[in-house]
């Protein structure tokens, strides 16, 4: 390749590189840099403090609380929403009357704007006259405050997330199912495989690349979750439903402790990086790429 080609190639990638560098890589490096300094306040400039912020983090009970919350949140929402997505995709794959309607119904939660979603669920959850209490009231059960009590707040938020994510992931599974030739299932059937076996030995393995893609997205989403918490619980009560990103937001922009916020962000970046690489390594062994 001669020199002119090189220059030409670099020129072509330049715009993308500039934007990526300016808005992704530079801020990331700046964040890491800031995590080694103190927060500037008033006339006091920022000072280099070494690992002090990280020490503080290890001793911060709220940090550990939101990490544990986030872990439960991920464990509770990811497998459930992926399983639901797959079941919904399989159920609307075959032709039947009203299929388009059912598909749309499954997908609706994903396209609804967040405020609408939150309003719907606030209506479900409202103590006393919310839908849930009205139904439980029919059976003579007392009032509940699912969003307001520390034991249930996180689960209430998780339910909304599963409801919203499953429809989105279903679209990916639907697309993947279209690419599996129907002859494969027929061949398996002829070879004596009942429907369950066809699913586990043929369909499911062939959906693995989609499952990988969807689960990486789900993990990332579970650590990026912040908007539902804003609208539904505000992280409360007593941080019971606060997650990592929400804590970062509160630290940085409500208490303006930007250095500690940067430290928390570095932890989150590291966590997401490790998770994504780990998933690729694990799945790579089991995924059949065509």
């Amino acid at each position, binding site marked *: 390749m001669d020199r002119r080609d090189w220059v030409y190639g670099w020129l072509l990638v330049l715009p993308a590189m500039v934007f990526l560098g300016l808005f992704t890589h530079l801020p990331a490096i700046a964040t890491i840099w800031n995590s080694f300094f103190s927060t500037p306040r008033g006339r006091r400039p920022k000072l280099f403090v070494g690992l002090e912020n990280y020490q503080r983090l290890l001793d911060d009970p709220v940090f550990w609380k939101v990490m544990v919350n986030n872990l439960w949140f991920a464990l509770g929402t990811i497998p459930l929403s992926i399983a639901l997505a797959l079941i919904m995709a399989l159920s609307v794959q075959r032709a039947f009357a009203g299929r388009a309607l059912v598909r749309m119904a499954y997908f609706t939660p994903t396209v609804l704007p967040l405020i609408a979603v939150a309003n719907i669920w606030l209506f479900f959850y409202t103590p006393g006259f919310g839908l849930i209490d009205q139904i439980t009231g029919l059976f003579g059960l007392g009032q509940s405050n699912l969003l307001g009590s520390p034991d249930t707040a996180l689960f209430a938020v998780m339910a909304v997330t599963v409801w919203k994510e499953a429809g989105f992931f279903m679209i990916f599974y639907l697309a993947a199912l279209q690419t599996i030739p129907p002859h494969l299932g027929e061949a398996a059937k002829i070879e*004596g495989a*009942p429907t369950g076996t066809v699913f586990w030995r043929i369909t499911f393995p062939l959906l693995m690349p989609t499952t990988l893609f969807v689960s990486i997205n789900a993990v990332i989403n579970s650590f990026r979750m912040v908007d539902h918490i804003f609208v539904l619980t505000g992280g409360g009560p007593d941080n019971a439903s606060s997650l990592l990103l929400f804590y970062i937001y509160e630290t940085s922009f409500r208490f303006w402790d930007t250095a500690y916020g940067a430290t928390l962000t570095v932890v989150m970046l590291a966590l997401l990086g490790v998770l994504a690489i780990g998933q690729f390594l694990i799945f790579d062994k089991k995924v059949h790429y065509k």
Partner: protein
Amino acid sequence: MNKPGLPIVLQGITKSWAGAVALDDVHLTIPAGQFSAILGPSGCGKSTLLRMIAGLETPSAGKVFIDGRDVTALPADQRGLSFVFQSYALFPHLSVAENIVFGLRTRRVPRAERNQRLAEVAQLLGLGPYLDRKPAQLSGGQQQRVALGRAIIAKRAICLMDEPLSNLDAKLRQTMRAELRALQQQLGFTMVYVTHDQVEAITMADQVVLMNAGRVEQVAAPDALYLKPDTVFAARFIGTPAMNILPAAALGPLGQGLEQAAGRPLSVGLRPEALVHVPQSPVVLSCTHAEYLGADALAHGHIGGHRAVMRVPGADRPEPGTQLLVSFAPQDLHLFDFATEHRTEVAGLSGIFLRLGLPTAKPTGAVASPFKPKDD
């Protein structure tokens, strides 16, 4: 080693989709342990018929019997047959070995027996070196063998194949034809083999089922199909180039004599290789052009104003405009009812020929194989 094949009987099978009738009242018997080829033009319902036997499609009306048992309501996994798809339908995420033993595994055959049978099949099909590969790493011919292996390892009594060779090149197709036939005879299963290629059907099958537009046109042994086609469709479908079909009147006095004897209008059928150039004859082929094929050639033209083709030696093909006097033997003349297009016989055919001064023995001439491989 193998269970002998089982017979299949179809009774009044009809299949219609919204608007389209794919199969129309099909009655068919497929004898046990024989090679039956289902032949017909594209879209005539061959695949639908095969899928019906397999249980992948349910008939709109009619019944399917296997070994005398009504299996119409039985799902595909319980009919005890194997199927080779045109696209092979190999499982892309499984190795060749896993593909082949898939059925044995689902039926929980012990591992030792599985491996032993896999070794046998791999040996038979020459797949030994490829057992650990994925299907995507095989050539078309090798993939085809894997599909075959998956079909025969279970030693099922019936094997259904839907155009299994159509993705292969002409040469490989020819070898595989012989191998498939040998395999079927060696293992003794009942083979139902769908093809749109008459050469495949005629060279491989014990019995050819000729289909047309969702109906069974004729069921016969390959030579009977060629020698005594039941209908004009069968006559024109089998043999390359196709049989000449002319209204009897095109043959002049001979045609009149035939129609008089039959008492109704007739079509006559004459294969291009049945026509022979003779010094004296009332039948004339006015040649428009000749098509050179090597050993022989095809003289295209008209007889009595109707298009006709004659096979001539490649060395002396006629010039355009030549008036060729042609004759043929009575036994090479096929007669069909003009209206119903069904085969009909006329008593005293030789007498009519004699009365008109035509030879009644087969005139000598170059007759090459009528079956030219179709390459597509």
